[in-house]
């Protein structure tokens, strides 16, 4: 089981190079993604660049630009941000790109662009995404998808009517380690689900410094109660989707509480939140997030009757019960100590690495999680496949997190109607 290969992904290869988009002879304008980890395969082949626009130039856009640089024929030709200092900083990083202050201007003028990444404040996703879809672009929308369920539904409807790929950036579904751990979760290794827990802890103010006071509203939208969906929305969305995906079903209710524990600066958005999600079979997910303590950061745990699985975005472990059946591969498994417990590190290509005596070299994700999401998106475009994370799925994770935020703000319990998760 541990020997599971990541199919087309280069996760197990330490020599993974930049991916190539190769336009095959005879292809009708569709770039075909050569999913090879080897540089040598693509060397010498001609390939047309895929022209990309990145709308939004904040810290997360920077991470996307960093990872796009690993895809040889992905060419960022346009960048947009309404804050001049951010735009100029991004343009310094990308040689030859044109800057725009208005996304509509970009969509009208940057006619060479076929792919658009929407990496702007959550409440601005709808307008930009709808405009990009209407302009006939392939669109990657960062999660959460929007700040209201209605906006999510509108985007999902537009995505359905588009012939292009609309991918929502819920990273777990593209993460090779999460995919591997999911095969364990859905096997006898974990067996029957007992309960679930997740947290997202960090220590900072969640407030962006502004040089010009007039930029405050635009930059500090996370603390604006009119548009913010709080910690459940911004952090919880990605984590809730992990459970949606692993379980193959969605919670039927959420209750929550929130308070301000550290940042007593007049803000209305809680800096510490708890939410409990219930599933129809009685399974329960306890989720919490805080901006007041960073202990253990961000992770998700699924407890089964045979083992627990802990997922931490760039690594994952399985903690076996003493009475769980022993499997052959455990002899050579890499283990890590956590106080009184010992976790088996989940490693891609473990069988191959173990046979080479290099098991430890497989520990951890070879690239940041966003890299794999971008790879899936481009793969879908190049090979005319459906998006790995559709707008419908983005709607569901985002809607649940929006309802969780409402429960946190109201201190209430909210039933999650299946209808609210449909377009």
């Amino acid at each position, binding site marked *: 089981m541990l020997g599971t290969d990541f199919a087309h992904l280069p996760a197990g290869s330490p020599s993974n*190079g930049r991916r190539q988009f190769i336009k095959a002879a005879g292809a009708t304008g569709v770039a075909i993604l050569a999913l090879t980890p080897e540089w040598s395969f693509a060397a010498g082949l001609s390939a047309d660049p895929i022209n990309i626009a990145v709308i939004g130039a904040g810290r997360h856009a920077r991470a996307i630009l960093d990872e796009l640089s690993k895809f040889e024929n992905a060419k960022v030709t346009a960048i947009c941000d309404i804050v001049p200092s951010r735009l100029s900083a991004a343009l310094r990083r990308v040689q030859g790109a044109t800057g725009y202050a208005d996304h509509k201007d970009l969509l009208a003028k940057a006619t060479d662009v076929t792919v658009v990444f929407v990496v702007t404040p959550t409440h601005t996703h709808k307008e930009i995404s709808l405009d990009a879809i209407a302009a006939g672009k392939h669109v990657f929308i960062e999660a959460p998808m929007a700040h209201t369920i209605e906006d999510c539904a509108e985007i999902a409807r537009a995505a359905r009517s588009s012939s292009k790929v609309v991918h929502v950036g819920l990273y777990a579904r593209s993460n090779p380690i999460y995919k591997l751990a999911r095969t364990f979760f859905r096997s006898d290794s974990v067996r029957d689900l007992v309960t679930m827990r997740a947290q997202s802890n960090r220590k900072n103010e969640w407030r962006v410094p502004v040089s010009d006071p007039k930029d405050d509203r635009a930059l500090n939208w996370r603390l604006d109660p009119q548009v913010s969906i709080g910690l459940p929305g911004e952090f919880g969305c990605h984590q809730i989707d992990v459970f949606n995906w692993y379980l193959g079903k969605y919670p039927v209710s959420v209750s929550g509480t929130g308070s301000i524990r550290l940042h007593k600066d007049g803000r209305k958005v809680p800096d510490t939140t708890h939410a409990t999600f219930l599933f129809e079979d009685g399974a329960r997910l306890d989720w919490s997030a805080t901006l007041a303590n960073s202990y253990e950061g961000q992770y998700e745990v699924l407890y089964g009757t045979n083992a627990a699985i802990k997922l931490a975005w760039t690594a994952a472990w399985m903690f076996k019960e003493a009475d769980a059946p022993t499997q052959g591969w455990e002899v050579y498994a890499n283990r890590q100590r956590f106080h009184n417990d010992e976790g088996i590190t989940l490693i891609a290509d473990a069988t191959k690495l173990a046979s080479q005596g290099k098991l430890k070299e497989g520990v951890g994700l070879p690239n940041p999680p966003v890299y794999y999401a971008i790879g899936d998106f481009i793969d879908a475009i190049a090979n005319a496949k459906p998006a790995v994370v559709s707008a419908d799925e983005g709607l569901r994770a985002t809607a649940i997190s929006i309802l969780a935020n409402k429960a946190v703000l109201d201190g209430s319990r909210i039933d999650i109607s299946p209808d609210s998760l449909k377009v």
Partner: protein
Amino acid sequence: MIHRAACFAMGTRFELVLDDNDPSRLGPIADHVLEEITHWHNRLSLFRRDSYLSYINANAINAAVPLEPELFELFSICLNVHRQSDGAFDPAIAPLMTTLGLHEGAILPAGDQSRDHGTHIDPASGLPLGPRGMAAVELDADRRTIRFHSPGVVLDLGAIAKGFAIDMAASHLREFGIERALVHGGTSSIVAIGSPPDADGWRIAMGSDADAPVITLCDGALSFSSPSGRSVETPDGSHRNTHIIDPRVGAPADQGVFAAAVASALTGNAVDPWPAARCEAWSTALVVLGSRPESMPETLTSAMARGSNPPRQWSIVGPHRPYITHTIPPGPSVSQGSRC
């Protein structure tokens, strides 16, 4: 009002000490700067598979790897100091550091026979065969790329990454108009912006000896290197390897230097945006060289100590010399956060 904030990164603790007429803006600014330091930790770590440094190490032997502008500058400093120090500073010898037991947990490219460093090591010297280290690294300024020309090359930025992160932090602080700040990484790599309230500079002791020189730093950078900082016993227990290696011979630096500090001249951001990175590279090189070479830029001040026990003999050369004393000078009181 002094605002302090800190984070753990690059195997040490980074701290910011900020002062401003409007203290309410310091919290968000500090968060922003600490996120920047964490960003570079994630990007430059030799101990993370998903860092960009690991990506470069895995791929630059096969093809030129693109670099963002800041990283290109960093590697340019590495190459320049490597050449100016005649190879005494070399951040491209990670396999050697691993062989000496100084890099447990480092991510070295492997799993590919062509990158099996064991096949490229001279058994007599323990050094990689053929061109090695930074001598086998090519930077292309037009394309802004890096390429390795020897399979024995693996970058391990070590302390210079700390200096670089502090330079980036200082750059962001200046962008937000901060005029009084001290940023340090593990107290050995420091940038001072302006001076603390009612003082002529940030007073920083060069080591823990009671008679260690104290530098009054204002708009400058300081780096401190000492081979006594960390060491690892050899497998046979016969001797200890210190963490500063002479890359020219592949063995721990052995020039009798207890510590070397390098301070940048009182330059503004426009003159040298990377003073801490440069100081880090040179302080390491000085421990290896044992004395200040003529090729060292005149804008840098060096302070070197010899002797295994205090009182040690300090040799101080350079434009910062007037700001260095052997006792804390009398004068305005300095807040607790201003002395490292």
